[in-house]
């Protein structure tokens, strides 16, 4: 069913805590499988709690898919830095990256589940955001 992952929407997890980001990514891998490009980032540039734009850009690059990338974030700065990272992407990629309004752990699992079935970016975002619907 998921013989190829190249076309599936990529998932990026951004948390203030690298442990949370990595743990959420572990949950995605174990529950959804490896049919989805996945990357995580967390922590500020000094290794403390926080997020940084460069790290988010790297994660988007690592999870890049022609179908786009859905970004799951936790609190405030994770969202604003993610939006900043999206702004800094090349123009042709910018429109294919969305920041989801969803809880970071649950949203990542659900977004990846949706993506693993080959759904387009809009459907992946919508599904993750069902948690707040």
């Amino acid at each position, binding site marked *: 069913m998921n013989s190829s992952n190249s076309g599936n929407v990529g998932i990026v997890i951004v948390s203030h805590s690298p442990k949370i980001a990595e743990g959420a990514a572990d949950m995605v891998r174990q529950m959804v499988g490896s049919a989805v490009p996945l990357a995580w980032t967390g922590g500020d540039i000094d290794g403390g709690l926080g997020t940084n734009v460069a790290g988010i850009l790297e994660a988007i690059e690592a999870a890049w898919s022609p179908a786009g990338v859905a970004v799951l974030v936790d609190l405030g700065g994770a969202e604003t830095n993610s939006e900043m990272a999206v702004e800094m992407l090349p123009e042709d990629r910018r429109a294919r990256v969305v920041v989801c309004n969803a809880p970071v752990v649950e949203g990542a699992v659900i977004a990846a589940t949706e993506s693993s079935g080959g759904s387009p970016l809009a459907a992946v975002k919508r*599904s993750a955001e069902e948690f707040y619907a």
Partner: protein
Amino acid sequence: MHDAHASRPSETPVPLTASAVLVNKVGLHARPSVKLTQCAKGFAAKIELALAVDGPWTDAKSPVKVMRVKAPQGATLHFRVTGPDGKAALAAVLALVHDGFGEA
């Protein structure tokens, strides 16, 4: 199975239905829900599930909605499937439930 309406398979008027008992320990929690929706998404057919034979019906392709059903171990899952590949879809989801979603 071909008849006068064979050219319009999406309008299959009567859905296929079947049920299966949840055997895995945790019931339809997160991981089984993900597996079920992934399986359901592999088919074009509309696939719904319910805890009672008369509903309310939940879209089996939505992981969030499936998890909200919170079906426990021992619950009977009813499936209602409509679409050209409905028969195969029904067989696949039933197999998954019977198999306990690959869990103990």
